[in-house]
């Protein structure tokens, strides 16, 4: 299949859709009409002033120059780009859900109950005892989890300084550990692509606050030695952190809590199909085992005694807050609706089909796929081709390419996660795109893409002299 993406071009100016500021700009005096004294106001404000029809056209055109899950396959490994059920939008748009976070408990019983129910769902799914909904994204969940771990250690008089992270882990794991003030100990991957238990034993010790792990890992391999890994970390007095980005592969078949993980985050914008919105918002609830519950962010929600109501409460030794209010509420509602829609069987089927799809696709492509058996994603290697070039060429065939050049353990990696929402024919399209691109000439690869709204974009120039606003363009 071929897809020519919509493209608007203004030939005389060599731009695609003009900037709003190029269409219409207005300066208004901000102080004149203000009830404030002049010395407390700005002088003027200059912004685009389009009419509503212009606004509608501008953003409609921009949208048509943007790929999305509703456009076609979007197999970004580790990003779990699923279809976002439309009805969840309607549920979240309920005007009665649009309340202020400082409302009294008694006046928002409905919202509190839904929060409570979602906490329960997530606890059950992860095998965790207590859940906070506050973290606004996966990385925020990581930070929350690591801060909880830190609080736990400090509470027990344990001063630990290191977090152990496999080399194949996501960048946020490393950055999170650093943000929480930990030194990072990077664990090289074992021969089989999994954690090298001996290396882990060597890395773990009195300074180990936690091991951060995702399972299946970022090439889709299940850490078969998870029980042993957990024992090693626990024996050293460390905690086990589960990065929930890959939970989709485990739904109904394995729970982090049962594997010995003490704390985890859920990526609801991955596993639970809330839309990623071109970068966010997501939500990264955190689940913990009982011993860690007292450190969770405040407030959490529980049932009140007796009367069937719900209340907020502050965990005894809370780390405080990780979001100014209650996190990304509108996203959480959608996650609730998704989980309720699928139920036990639907969740299990999602995992089954996600894993089947990855395996089927891997079978159909001509690229090598080292390691295995993988679950929901696999890292093919582009071999002596440049993975990024192959990806660009794939754009011409009407699909979004996989994540490229990561994880580094696979040379020229193309980390591919089709998720359960692709059917056979769409996987066949994807495979064909892979194969056509992979087999194409160097010339074709390096000059691609050609059917996209923009041609290949100069990244180096963008970074060398950053132009980050229309003001910066005007200055030229």
């Amino acid at each position, binding site marked *: 299949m071929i897809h020519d993406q919509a493209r608007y071009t203004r030939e005389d100016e060599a731009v695609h859709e003009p900037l709003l500021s190029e269409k219409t700009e207005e300066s208004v005096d901000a102080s004149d009409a203000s009830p404030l004294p002049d010395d407390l106001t700005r002088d003027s404000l200059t912004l685009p002033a389009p009419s509503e029809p212009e606004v509608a056209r501008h953003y409609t055109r921009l949208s048509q120059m943007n790929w999305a899950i509703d456009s076609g396959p979007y197999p970004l490994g580790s*990003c779990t780009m699923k279809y976002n059920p439309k009805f969840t939008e309607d549920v979240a748009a309920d005007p009665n859900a649009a309340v202020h976070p400082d409302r009294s408990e008694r006046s928002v019983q409905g919202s509190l109950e839904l929060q409570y129910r979602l906490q329960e769902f997530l606890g059950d799914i992860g095998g965790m005892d207590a859940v906070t909904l506050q973290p606004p994204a996966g990385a925020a969940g990581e930070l929350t989890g690591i801060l909880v771990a830190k609080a736990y250690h400090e509470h027990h008089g344990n001063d630990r300084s290191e977090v152990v992270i496999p080399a194949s882990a996501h960048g946020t794991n490393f950055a999170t550990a650093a943000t929480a003030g930990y030194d990072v100990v990077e664990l090289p991957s074992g021969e089989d692509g999994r954690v090298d238990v001996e290396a882990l034993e060597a890395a773990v010790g009195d300074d180990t606050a936690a091991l951060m792990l995702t399972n299946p890992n970022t090439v889709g391999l299940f850490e078969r030695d998870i029980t042993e890994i957990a024992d090693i970390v626990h024996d050293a007095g460390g905690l086990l952190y589960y990065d929930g980005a890959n939970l989709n592969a485990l739904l109904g078949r394995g729970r982090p809590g049962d594997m010995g993980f003490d704390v985890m985050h859920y990526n609801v914008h991955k596993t639970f199909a809330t839309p990623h919105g071109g970068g966010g918002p*997501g939500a990264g609830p955190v689940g913990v085992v009982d011993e860690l519950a007292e450190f969770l962010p405040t407030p959490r929600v529980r049932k009140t005694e007796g009367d069937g109501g719900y209340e907020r409460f502050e965990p005894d030794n809370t780390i405080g807050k990780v979001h100014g209010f209650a996190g990304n509420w509108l996203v959480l509602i959608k996650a609730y609706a998704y989980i309720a829609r699928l139920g036990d069987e639907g969740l299990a089927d999602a995992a089954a089909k996600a894993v089947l799809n990855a395996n089927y696709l891997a079978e159909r492509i001509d690229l090598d796929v080292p390691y295995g058996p993988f679950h929901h994603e696999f890292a093919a290697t582009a071999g002596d081709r440049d993975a990024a070039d192959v990806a660009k060429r794939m754009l011409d065939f009407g699909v979004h390419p996989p994540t490229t050049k990561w994880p580094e353990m696979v040379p020229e990696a193309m980390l591919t996660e089709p998720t359960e929402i692709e059917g056979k024919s769409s996987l066949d399209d994807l495979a064909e795109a892979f194969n056509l691109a992979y087999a194409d000439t160097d010339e074709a690869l390096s000059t691609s893409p050609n059917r996209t709204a923009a041609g290949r974009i100069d990244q180096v120039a963008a970074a060398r002299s950053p132009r980050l606003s229309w003001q910066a363009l005007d200055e030229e």
Partner: protein
Amino acid sequence: MSGADGSPYAPHTDAETAAMLDAVGVADEEALFDIPDAVAFDGEFGIDARSERDIRDECSRLFGRNRDLTEFLGRGHYGHYVPSVVDHLSDRAEFLTSYTQYQPEISQGFLQALFEYQSMLVELTGLEVANCSMYDAATALGEAATLADRVRSTSGDVVLVPEQLREGKRAVLENYCAGADLTVESYPMDDGNADVDALAERADADAVMVYAENPTVRGCVEERLAAIGEVADDAGALFTLGSDVVSLAVLQEPASVGADVVVGEAGALGLPTAYGMGLGIFACSDDFIRQVPGRLVGASEDARGDRAFTLTLQTREQHIRKERATSNICTNQAWVALRAAIHAATLGPGGLVDLANDCVREAADLAERIDDVVGAAAPVHDRHHVREFAVHVDQPAAAVAEDLETRGFAVHVIGEHLLQVCVTDLNAGRADDLVAAVEEVI
């Protein structure tokens, strides 16, 4: 559609599943799972699948149990009327269901929208750089502190914040500071504004950052911003200013008073009242461009010579720089930024300034009228206000608030005898009724 028991969003027919299993060479999907028995799970969460319609009904019943109150609430989370066009455009699937723009050639639409959002924030703050979102004002403040820590070569480790600060915001800040070995300390206020003299005394070489808000958490316009900026400068500390996207339209331009960083809420445009869900502003001067947390969109050229947009300066970010990244943020609030940009475009500068000025006017009016009620005094602080102000009540504030709630109004309790009231375009039409209720209640 797969059987009633499967995921309604997995398209496999039985025949397709069979063909695929065959191609893979296994008998069933279970054979593909490499999970040791010891940690396997039987799949019984006890969650019953429901129909789309049942879930809509269930949630609408649930939310229907929230009481129907007119909210005079603010303190960092503000609602303004969001024009319908914002919903309709931002809900377009190409925006809503896309991922981060890792392939810019097919993501020009969102990239340009974010570039335009950044530009609007550049105009509003007067600073050269704005990223395309943090989670919210609180986390943006946290990121500002760690940026200060990186860029300030002082030996200090103190972040100075106003003593009147939303508790949650300070709590988040402390969590960011803890990892960077920074200490958060507060400086005193003087009738709702910073006590600049006290601040000057407190701001010594230990200070890496001075934070002030305009308007403050109590809605007061901060009158000596330039002086605060000088204090910070003298101490070699970063001056970070907190505000929101509407207030910025009329209050002093942050750059003009020496702000190095601006954080705050942009969700006041584009987002409905959303239980605190936000959109963190992060803008700063050019000097820190390679220290900015979060995503940045830049202009470049494509192979055809046309202007094109791309995520840029990614070497700052976690996926490349790992533990040396400027932040751990990955998923952000891009779609909310899109909504804010559409809302701002719909208003235009005139509409935005009007909205901001109305927030000043309405607050003054309502304060005056509440002040007329015997037993109430407002505003507590002799300052100009944006949207909100503190009210002294002779009776216990909590009881007054509870009584108001039974009459259908929500206000903040911020002290034993202190309420806080926030008025915007959304609730201004009910201001008369609020005043009447206050009269009845006290």
